[in-house]
């Protein structure tokens, strides 16, 4: 990031490759909309580009990046809330907020199940490093060689680290299922 701040903007492409999956999952957990999550991920990096000068020498890049992501998410909800309010005032009809974009619909349906929410919750219980490699391997479908290039480490070591992280994820999923309140059959 310091390189990017000092003018080498190409390094932002590497940072994007490294963190886009994590940011995408961060937004997916909160918005449950694929296209929107991709857009918000882009937005985070456009802000990184715009405000790179404010990154401090001894700064924690991940902390800074996710701070931007949280701000963007909050602003997005504020905007969405305001927009729906305006539409209600003008038209007075809830159906008026119809999204014509058909691509938005399967996204939402595909990701609304309780299992998905549980999985995102389990992912967030992993350390950042473990979450990152699980997402890169199993959500972004990157090869170990590609991951090794992006993360600048050995592919063989990565195989073991991802395996341990997935095993830990499985344990978190198991304990989250146990923590889940009992639901009466037929009651959602």
């Amino acid at each position, binding site marked *: 990031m310091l390189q990017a701040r000092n003018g080498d903007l190409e390094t932002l492409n590497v940072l994007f490759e490294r963190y*886009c999956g994590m940011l995408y999952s961060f937004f997916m957990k909160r918005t449950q909309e694929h296209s929107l999550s991709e*857009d918000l*991920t882009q937005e985070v990096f456009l802000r990184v580009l715009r405000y790179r000068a404010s990154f401090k020498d001894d700064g924690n890049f991940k902390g800074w990046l996710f701070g931007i992501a949280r701000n963007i998410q909050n602003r997005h909800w504020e905007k969405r809330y305001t927009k729906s309010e305006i539409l209600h005032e003008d038209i007075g009809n809830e159906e008026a907020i119809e999204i014509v974009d058909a691509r938005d619909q399967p996204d939402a349906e595909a990701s609304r199940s309780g299992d*998905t929410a549980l*999985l995102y919750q389990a992912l967030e219980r992993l350390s950042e490093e473990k979450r990152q490699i699980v997402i890169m391997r199993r959500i972004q479908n990157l090869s170990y060689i590609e991951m090794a290039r992006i993360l600048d480490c050995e592919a063989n070591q990565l195989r073991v680290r991802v*395996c341990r992280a*997935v*095993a830990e994820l499985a344990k978190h999923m198991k304990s989250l299922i146990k923590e889940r309140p009992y639901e009466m059959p037929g009651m959602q």
Partner: protein
Amino acid sequence: MKCQECSDQLLAYLEGELTMDERNRIDHHLSQCDNCRVIRDEISNACQSLDKLPKPSETMAKRFSAALSAYKSGQLEGIRLLEGEQRKRTWIESIARNGYAQAAVIIFAFLIGILVSQSISTQETNGNRFDVIETELASLKEFTALSLLTQTSAVERLRGLEWLSELNLESEQVLEALYDKLNNDPNINVRFAALETLDAYAEKEEVRRKLVQLLETPNLPMIRAELIKLLVRHAEKDSVPTLIQISQDANEDETIRELATWSSQVLQQMNTDEI
């Protein structure tokens, strides 16, 4: 094989990333170890759940890379412009500070007065150079904004419209893109934003004329309602025949018909002076 060695390779085993020899060793260990079989099943289940999650598209990185390139080109143009201004300022400042240089300029100008006209023409060329750079910058901004309008994501298209409204560009290409978004965009919010952007251009007669034409084409009732309101706000009397036609069309949405009736009456009552 120890359990730790086996469990560390279980993901690669399930993914088919191991050699035949490594695979056989794992199979052998699994046939004898209940604990590792449980871990294998847990990892397998977790992978199946992860596979069901939506994936970010491969084009996401390309889109960012394209945005970064556009930013860099814009930045380069900006640097060139700044350097040009800097050079101009340094030249003028050095003469202003140096008395000998001032005298030399005066004598030189006096002696070769005939060349003054040529000097002026050179300055004009410099001015033109800045104009060219400014034009290039404007076209770069316009290009970027229009590129955003063609993105598959509605949020990107909305951002493109935001850019256009901030830049206040007036080319025919921009207006055509706005008309297209207003009538054909798959997302209703983008259509609204296109109409809002066009509102700023509606002082122009040709824009209003085009908007009247667009009122004759099918669109979502909410958009049509806003379009009618816009035409009334801009006192577009030429829209009256179309509005009357809409108000009498039995197939038209009831609310739109009422709005069209009211709007045509308002426009007809308007005094020319008010317009």
